[in-house]
């Protein structure tokens, strides 16, 4: 089994707000991130897939295909968007880094053919990242 990781970057705006909370609760729980006008990050995405090395190609996965799936399923939808307003998952879910990692996993997992998705890592900043391994 070999693990292969591909990086990508996207920039997006978001804010944290739960309509079931009062304004005070939202402010207390989410702090600065509750500003309704939004703020943004340069996100770094790391997608790790695993599989056996194909004896003919020497690949775990065709990197071009992986790159295309990541671009189509994630970057086209997230890059330079206001996540709360333009990405369907976040019309109802708060676009925290945790939920971003889960949403990205759910977008990629069904589209990857040869290799198996192992981990989605999303860096919100160089000092904060979330890993999702598809665990229930």
């Amino acid at each position: 089994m070999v693990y292969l990781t591909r990086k990508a970057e996207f920039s997006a705006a978001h804010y944290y707000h739960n309509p079931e909370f009062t304004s005070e609760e939202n402010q207390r729980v989410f702090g600065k991130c509750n500003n309704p006008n939004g703020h943004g990050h340069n996100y770094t995405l790391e997608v790790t897939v695993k599989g056996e090395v194909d004896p003919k190609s020497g690949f775990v996965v065709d990197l071009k295909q992986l790159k295309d799936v990541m671009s189509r399923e994630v970057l086209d939808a997230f890059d330079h968007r206001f996540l709360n307003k333009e990405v369907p998952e976040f019309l109802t879910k708060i676009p925290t880094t945790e939920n971003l990692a889960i949403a990205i996993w759910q977008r990629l997992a069904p589209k990857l053919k040869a290799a198996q998705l192992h981990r989605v890592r999303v860096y919100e900043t160089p000092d904060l990242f979330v890993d999702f391994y598809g665990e229930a």
Partner: protein
Amino acid sequence: MKAHLTRRYMFSASHRLHSDEMSEEENRATYGKCNNPYGHGHNYTIEVTVSGPVDDQTGMVCNLADLDAFVHNQVLERYDHQNLNLLSEFVKQVPTTENLCIAIYEIMKRGFHNAHLEKVRIEETMMNSFEYRGESAR
């Protein structure tokens, strides 16, 4: 759904690697430059990884503000700009980054209960790093 959240922090501290159980020659042979009696220092980076179910109400494993506050008050306040050899945990233990990593893991494990502690990782320099996942991890 379960996610892992990792946060990085930095602090700077001095230390000297020296064991009272060894002779001067043994100390020099074992620790080399790190045995310099006047000590030396590092910019340490620590990575704290916690895990847990993502809360439906907040979208979070745990509130980052709580994690940051705990690490600042209990870890960074204790170690930043200090001489590690003078701290109580290093009176009898050599302040190697292995032992520092375990000490920080134990502080987190004892006091931070908002999410499950997965591991503490420390970069002593850009070239070396250490991880501790607790005694039970094999």
